[in-house]
């Protein structure tokens, strides 16, 4: 019985080490357009890794925004949800900072 518990515990520990434990660091939501305008959904994400407390850049929010903008040229973006999350691997020795942005691209009605 003890052996089974130990194995199960070991498997769970290994799963957590490899899959990574996530934490939501911050969230923001901007004004959401009317339902009729929620047609063209766009999303983007970017991340930076930190290994043994050494971060490899912190430009990920700007990269995510750049990606989002490239998906909505000539339009404005509303209903923006931004989610900043941190995923820990190997007891936090390695972690990934990621931002996920999604919103609606609105094009000028007059221009079609």
């Amino acid at each position, binding site marked *: 019985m003890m052996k089974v518990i130990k194995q199960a515990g070991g498997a*769970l520990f290994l799963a*957590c080490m490899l*899959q*990574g*434990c*996530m*934490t*939501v660091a*911050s*969230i*923001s*939501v*901007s*004004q*959401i*357009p*009317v*339902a*009729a305008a*929620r047609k063209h959904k766009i999303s983007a994400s970017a991340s930076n890794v930190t290994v043994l407390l050494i971060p490899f850049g912190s430009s990920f929010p700007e990269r995510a925004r750049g990606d989002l903008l490239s998906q909505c040229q000539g339009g404005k973006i509303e*209903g923006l*949800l931004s*989610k900043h*999350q941190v995923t820990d691997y190997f007891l936090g020795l390695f972690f990934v900072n990621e931002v996920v942005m*999604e919103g609606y691209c609105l094009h000028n009605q007059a221009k079609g």
Partner: protein
Amino acid sequence: MPLSIRLLSAMLFVLSSSCAHSIHQLYVGSMDPKVSYAQGQWVTAEAKTTVVLSFEFDTSYVEQAYRELESKCPGRLAQVTTEHLTSFLFLSYEQKVVLKGLCVKAALASEKH
């Protein structure tokens, strides 16, 4: 009863009684110009996830709250307020997102233009 056992019992009581709550973030979004608070009604959406032993593999509850908020308002949602909270339970905790927005009806929006 030794002091260590008493302390341990007190800690166990605190951990199991769900008496600790914390708020991580409160974000108040922008308000649309020339929209008054009397023009709409406040709608709220919330989503949560229970994390056991700090093993959290999914953060989709954030998007879930967003979808719920959207579904509750056919009009425009102005000044969306975001709250991110944690309630501590026995060897686990609950992560919660509460979104609140001013729903301005679609009819009202089209009337304006």
